Every structure is written in structure tokens, then in C-alpha cells.
């Protein structure tokens, strides 16, 4: 009995200790927690492909350049300055005098090792392989990095490869098998990863040696949720402080909460219809079972006229998007954004759409459905969407309604995501499909998804096409912009490409969804989006938001925080006492029973 009492007392003391320790500590850690609905695939940047992992890499590692927080134009990061040879084939970067988080100096040799590793080791290409495809050689001399290219490349300054510390990574025998679960990581970004629990969280601590200066908070946690609804509840309860990439209905549900700031700005994504206009493989052989009518640009244009984009924005996106009168690059990127105007602009006009089809010889039958001019097939298209996506379902209902008035039957085909990617990206078993792309500050990647070379081979390999598009005009414009190092001139060429996509309509842009996020203002005092003018927080390009983030100072919030802490401690202590007492009685009863048996 006396022993039990002693244990009980010890337990109480134990429960109380963290409380006293906390009270004694002068400045509690400033911790900010970000909720995400995707888990980290690999902490090895050579292997990781997921968006969440990319965001975390930006906080841990430096890059040659980062998009400027105001203009999104390339600005110095690890590369202090750079020069280009007149032929555009040789780039020389001056690497900043800074330190890795373990105190070693950063040199050009680190960058050269990173790029050379990717050029020579196929395993290391998994994450960002295409970024070094055009590199002929990379050499280092002190702080000077020289990259020689095979062909001029304007997007050189948007290089997505994090620079890795050579002295740590050159010891790894096989990159492909290495999960990089060694903490703390050695990096050169504002934060250092100190812990990762697979499918649970990643913990980052401020890097005191960061060359721009230490971040204003002490710790950043990225917490994974399987279920978006659970993450919303988490934000409301205060389990997390910020969450990005919300859908309109979840965003709306944050409205009633006074502690939550609803972040609603222009996004970096375009939602568009992908039209099977006669898909071919990379050796120009037809593939798939697309409807022949869609090969006719007039039919595609007629469909474009039959879409009320403003109505879609209002009804499908709850008004939280911008109708697209342009193409695949959203207006967030002011420099590259192109918008149709004048006679070229296609706006909702069913009469005009009907007239285009009438004139082109697609006659309406007795049932109101049009047939091909040669009478061979009715204009009945399939619309491929993903399963369990209410937004896409609703979109399908609207398109079906409008197309019906055009004499075109649209049936919805719901596919799970792997089947969807296969049918719309490789085997071309679709007529019209929903699609979208999140665009980087340099639009080369998204422009590249409509190149001939991106079509799959006959055996279904390669690819990455978003439209099976293969158009000589578009191809030559692409090569032109790739070589053009003058940003203004390059933007003009890129706008011509967007115009081509708009008028030829292999894809029809519907709207640009807003960037919808939410954060707790009782935790986050300030956060700077990227770009600073109405930009993004989570999922933006660069670490800027999470570097500038300021937590609510504990003076203001201490009553709250301390109170709830004290409550928790009291609760835990109480629980321990109850448990101990219960345990005591159970033990007594057991020993009693044992006594009886003996």
C-alpha cells in the first residue's frame, strides 16, 4: 500500500513537471503547423515528384535562382549573378559565399556535382530529369559554375533542381535506393528538416545560418491528412494553422469561423477541356477511338461557342474562379498571359454555334441530334471525368445541357484516376476530357505538353501530352521562344502560342480557379504571398511565404495558449490520478482474489 502511494505521488510529480518546465522557459518556441492532403513520397530530392515534397524542398535547399517575390521574374538565390555567352550556349553563374547548415562552405562544386549526378545517373533523373536534358557539360571553378548547353534555352533561369551538398551526398552508393532519412538534413534553405514520420508529418527547424537571415519562427511542421474534410476540422480546432489548395465548398465552410482568414486570390492553375482531335502517336499513326467530327476545327469552335464560362464559374466553382478568355496560362503570370479580344474572342452564343455547324453541313436529324456531313455517324461524344468529383460532375451536367441545344449528345464517362490518365494521355480512348495544369513562373513546362514529341509511342511509352497536339506553327513558335533570351520578345512569342491553342482549339480553357486557402489569425500574425500582390501562400513558387511568416507573439496569445496548456496538464494529471486509483483498486481486487485462491 505504501509503495502504491509512492508510485501515485511520483506520477503526479511527473505530470506536473512539464508544466513547471514550460513556465520556467522564457520564450516558448514559435511553431507553425501547415496542413496538407498529400504525403511526402521521398525526402531524397533526386527521387521525389510530388507537389508537397517540392514545397518542402524549397524550404530546405537553395536553388540557382528563385522567382522574385514581386515580379516572379528569376532573381538571385544561391547564384548571386550570371552571364550568358552571345550564342546563348554558355551560362556562367557566380555562387554565393554562404554556408551549409553543417558549417561547410557552399561552392560551385556542389552545384556541379548535383547536375552531373543527374546527367550521368538515370536514378537521379526521377525527380527533375528534364531540367538537365539540354545540358552538355557542367564544370566548377571555385565559386564559378559554368553550364554549357546543347541548344539555347530561355528557361535556364527557372531551373527546378535543388542544389545538394556534395560532401554529404557523394558518399551515397546508390541514389535510387536512398531515402535520405538522416536528420538533421544538411541544406542551404531557410529551414532544416529534423524529423519525418512517413504519412504523418515533417518537422522543420529554422536554419540559424541561412544567408538571408534566420526565419522569424522556430519550427514549421507539415502535417498530412488523408481526408480533406478532416483537415478542415483540424484547422477549425487549431490542430493546424494554415491549409492551402482548398476546393470551393471547403473554403465556404470556413466563412463562419472568426479566427480564420479566408485567403482568396488568383491561382496558378488553368482548367480546360482536352479534345481528341484525331490523336496520333509520335510516329504519326492514328491511335484511340476519338470521334471523327472533332477533327474538324469548326466543330471544336462551335463547341467553344456553346460554353457559358461565366455560368460555369458561378455554378460550378461557386464564383471563386475567373472565366478563361485566354488559354493555358492564367492571368497570375502577367508577363505571359494572353487574352482573346475583338473578333477573335469567343463568347457564349448558341445561335452562332448552331450556325457554324449548319454551315459546315452537320445536319440535325429527326431526334434533334446532328450527323456527320456524310451521314455516317451522329455527333455523340463522350466526356471523360474522374470518379467522385462533384465539381466535374456538375461541369458535365452543364456541358451536356448546352451541347444538347447544339444537337450534340454528350454522355459522361467516370474513370478512376489511373484509368483516366491512361485513356486521356496514352491510349486516346476519349472524345472530350477534363484537364488542368498548375503553371510555373516560367511557362515552358506547360507549353511543352502540347508538342509533337510529347505524344506517346505506339507501344504507349513516353508521352506527357495534354492534347495529342502536333501543329507545325506551334512547334516553330516553341523553338523560337526557347532561343529568345529577351524576356519581352519571348513573352510575345509565347502569347502567339496561346493564341494558336485558342483558335485551333485542341484544348478549350474554361476558367482559372482561384487560390483558396485558410489560416488562423490567432496563430499567424503575417504572411507574405508570392507574388506579393494577391499571390499564393502554400503551393506558390518559392519559400517566400514561409520565410516571411510571423507567428502571433506570445504576449498577446499567452493567456490563450498558457490557459489551454494548463488545462491539458491539469487534465492529464487528473487522468493519471484516476487511472492510478483505478489500477490500485483493480490490483487490490486481483490480489484479494489471489489470496482467496491460495
Amino acid at each position, binding site marked *: 500500500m505504501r509503495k502504491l502511494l509512492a508510485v501515485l505521488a511520483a506520477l503526479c510529480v511527473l505530470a506536473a513537471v512539464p508544466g513547471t518546465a514550460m513556465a520556467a522557459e522564457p520564450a516558448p518556441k514559435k511553431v507553425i503547423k501547415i496542413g496538407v492532403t498529400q504525403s511526402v513520397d521521398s525526402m531524397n530530392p533526386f527521387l521525389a515528384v510530388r507537389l508537397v515534397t517540392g514545397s518542402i524542398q524549397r524550404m530546405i535547399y537553395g536553388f540557382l535562382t528563385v522567382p522574385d517575390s514581386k515580379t516572379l521574374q528569376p532573381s538571385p538565390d544561391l547564384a548571386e549573378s550570371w552571364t550568358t555567352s552571345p550564342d546563348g550556349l554558355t551560362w556562367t553563374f557566380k555562387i554565393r559565399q554562404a554556408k551549409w547548415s553543417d558549417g561547410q562552405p557552399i561552392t560551385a562544386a556542389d552545384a556541379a556535382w548535383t547536375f552531373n549526378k543527374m546527367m550521368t545517373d538515370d536514378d537521379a533523373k526521377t525527380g527533375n530529369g528534364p531540367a538537365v536534358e539540354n545540358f552538355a557539360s557542367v564544370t566548377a571553378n571555385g565559386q564559378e559554375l559554368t553550364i554549357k548547353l546543347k541548344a539555347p534555352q530561355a528557361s535556364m533561369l527557372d531551373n527546378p533542381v535543388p542544389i545538394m551538398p556534395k560532401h554529404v551526398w557523394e558518399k551515397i552508393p546508390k541514389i535510387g535506393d536512398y531515402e535520405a532519412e538522416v536528420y538533421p538534413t544538411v541544406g542551404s534553405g531557410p529551414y532544416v528538416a529534423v524529423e519525418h514520420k512517413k504519412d504523418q508529418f515533417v518537422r522543420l527547424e529554422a536554419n540559424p545560418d541561412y544567408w538571408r537571415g534566420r526565419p522569424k519562427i522556430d519550427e514549421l511542421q507539415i502535417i498530412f491528412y488523408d481526408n480533406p474534410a478532416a483537415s478542415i476540422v483540424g484547422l477549425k480546432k487549431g490542430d493546424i494553422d494554415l491549409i492551402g489548395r482548398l476546393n470551393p*465548398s471547403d473554403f*465556404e*465552410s470556413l466563412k463562419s469561423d472568426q479566427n480564420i482568414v479566408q485567403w482568396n486570390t488568383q491561382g496558378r492553375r488553368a482548367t480546360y477541356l482536352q479534345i481528341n482531335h484525331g490523336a496520333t502517336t509520335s510516329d504519326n499513326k492514328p491511335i484511340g477511338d476519338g470521334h471523327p467530327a472533332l477533327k474538324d476545327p469548326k466543330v471544336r469552335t462551335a463547341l467553344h461557342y456553346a460554353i457559358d464560362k461565366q455560368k460555369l464559374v458561378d*455554378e460550378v466553382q461557386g464564383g471563386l474562379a475567373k472565366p478563361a478568355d485566354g488559354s493555358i496560362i492564367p492571368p497570375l503570370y502577367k508577363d505571359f498571359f494572353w487574352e482573346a479580344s475583338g473578333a477573335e474572342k469567343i463568347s457564349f452564343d448558341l445561335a452562332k454555334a448552331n450556325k457554324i455547324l449548319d454551315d459546315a453541313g452537320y445536319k440535325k436529324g429527326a431526334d434533334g441530334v446532328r450527323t456527320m456531313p456524310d451521314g455516317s455517324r451522329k455527333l455523340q461524344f463522350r466526356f471523360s471525368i474522374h*470518379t*467522385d468529383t*462533384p465539381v466535374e*460532375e*456538375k461541369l458535365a*451536367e*452543364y456541358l*451536356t*445541357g*448546352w451541347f*444538347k*441545344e447544339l444537337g450534340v449528345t454528350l*454522355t*459522361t*464517362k*467516370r474513370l478512376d484516376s489511373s484509368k483516366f490518365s491512361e485513356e486521356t494521355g496514352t491510349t486516346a480512348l476519349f472524345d472530350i476530357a477534363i484537364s488542368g495544369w498548375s503553371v510555373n513562373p516560367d511557362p515552358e513546362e506547360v507549353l511543352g505538353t502540347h508538342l509533337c514529341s510529347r505524344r506517346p509511342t505506339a507501344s504507349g511509352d513516353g508521352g506527357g501530352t495534354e492534347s495529342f497536339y502536333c501543329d507545325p506553327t506551334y512547334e516553330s513558335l516553341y523553338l523560337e521562344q526557347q532561343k529568345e533570351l529577351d524576356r519581352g520578345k519571348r513573352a510575345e512569342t509565347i502569347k502567339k502560342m496561346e493564341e494558336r491553342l485558342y483558335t485551333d482549339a485542341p484544348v478549350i480553357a474554361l476558367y482559372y480557379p482561384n487560390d483558396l486557402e485558410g489560416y488562423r489569425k490567432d496563430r499567424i500574425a503575417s504572411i507574405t504571398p508570392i507574388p506579393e500582390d494577391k499571390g499564393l501562400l502554400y503551393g506558390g513558387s518559392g519559400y517566400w511565404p514561409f520565410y516571411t511568416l510571423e507567428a502571433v507573439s506570445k504576449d498577446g496569445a499567452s493567456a490563450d495558449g498558457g490557459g489551454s496548456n494548463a488545462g491539458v496538464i491539469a487534465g492529464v494529471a487528473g487522468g493519471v490520478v484516476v487511472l492510478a486509483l483505478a489500477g490500485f483498486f483493480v490490483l487490490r481486487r486481483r490480489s484479494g482474489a489471489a489470496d482467496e485462491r491460495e
Partner: protein
Amino acid sequence: MSNVTWVRRRRAIGRFWADFRTHRAGVVGLVILAVAVVLALLAPLFIDASVTNVVSGTGAKMAPPSLDDPLGTDESGRSVLLMIWWGSRTSLLIGFLAALLSMVIGTVLGIAAGHFRGRIGAVILRVTDWFLVLPSLVTALVLAAILGGSTATIIVAIGVTSWPSTARLIRAQTLAVEARPYIERSLALGAGHWHITTRHVLPNVAPLLLASTTLEVASAIVTESTLAFLGVSANKTSWGTMLRGSYDWGAATAGAWWYILVPGLCIVTVVMAFTLCGRALETVLNPRLRTRAHA
């Protein structure tokens, strides 16, 4: 001969109706069903599929019941009342046809299993057992997903997963009927399998079949709604897809009770009506239940 049979049958039906009328719940169920079916059949005279078209939804979004829209509107401004009315056609059609399909499969296999008692019967019985232990909702989901979304595939998906219990029931009844002496007499007179199963067994299991089918329709309607709620639908408005829509578009958080309650109550009412009818039929047709009921 046929004259005598007809007189006998008419008398039997008269007796049956007199008996059925005494079950008030059954009569109530029958009336509700009759109203629902007549409304569904008459719908095309007043409205057409455009009431479910989002493009022609002109009302406010999630508007509460008013004079214009007596049961409010949904997320696209469509009238819930008109959608319910038009959707009843899909729900009832799928319910009836799936029950019919399940009944046909169940009857054929049930009678076969009861009649051929050797190896064939054993095989059929094992197959039935195998289908019986399959989780029918999951199987139906998978089937509908593979076959694609159309009214026919949903009917098939429900029909082929719900027949085993009917088959079991019919087999038991077949065994009982075939144990009667007149079957033996018929056999002695040279009757073949076809004659015995169609002339003697089928008429005797028919009443039970009617009751079982009525109950089956109820469960088929519920299954259709469940499948639609889980995202597998015939691309047409039904009560299940409306429930799904109310869930997808946050009717609960928007306080749009009419959007959730109305389709839900419709399902409950019709299923209840079928069940009441079915139970009453069972009682009337099964002498054992009747004596217990009267005792």
C-alpha cells in the same frame, strides 16, 4: 376443362382479394404504390427531362420552399419537386426491372435446384451459396463500374447480385410441392421434367414468388439509391442521385433540409409501401402465417 379452371381461378382471386382487404396496412401500401406508379407514368404528359437539366434551372440556388418551387430548389436552381417527380421514373423503373430480373434468375435456378436433386441440383445450390455470401453491394458496385453507367447496367448489377435468396426460397417450396403424391401420379402417367416444373411446380410457387418479388422491389430501390449515393448511377436523375447531390453540394451545412429530406422521404415511403404490400401478400398466401395471425 379450361372453363372449369377459369371459374376456379376467378373464385380463388376473389377469395384472395377478400382476404387481402382485411389487412389494412397492405391496402394502404397498395394505394401508395398505385399513386406513385400512376404519377410516374403520367409525368411525361406534364413535364419532360428538361426539369433535370442544369442549364434550364432558373430559380435561386438552394432556395427554400416557396409558391414557385413548393419543395425548394437544389444547388443549380432546379425545382426539387419536379426533379423528384421525374426522378421517380428512374427509381421505380430500376426497382421493378431489377426485381424482375432477380426473380427470373432466382425462380429458374430455384426450381431447377429443387427438381433435379442429383449432381445438377448440388452444383446449382453451391453456386447459389457462393452468390449468397458475396457482399452484394460491393459486387454490384464493381459490376456497375466495369459495365459502365447506364440504366441497363444498373439493373443487371442489382439483379445478378440479389437473386440467391429468391432461389433458396423457391427451391424449398419446390421440394415441398414435389413431395406431394400427385407429382408421383403425374410421373407415373409419363410426365417429363418440363411438364412437372411448369404445370405443377410453377403454379404452386407463384403466390410465394409474388410476395417475395414485392419485397425484392423495395430492396432494389434501396440498392439503386445506395449505388447512386456512392457515385454509381445511370446518368439520370433518380432519388439516389438527388441524395448524392445534396451531400456533394453541402445541403446540410447550407441548411437546405428540403433537398435532403424530400428524396429521403420518397424512398422511405415507397419502400415502406412495397414492404407493407409484400408482408400482407405473404400473410394471405401462406396458410401457416394466417392461422398464426388469427390465433
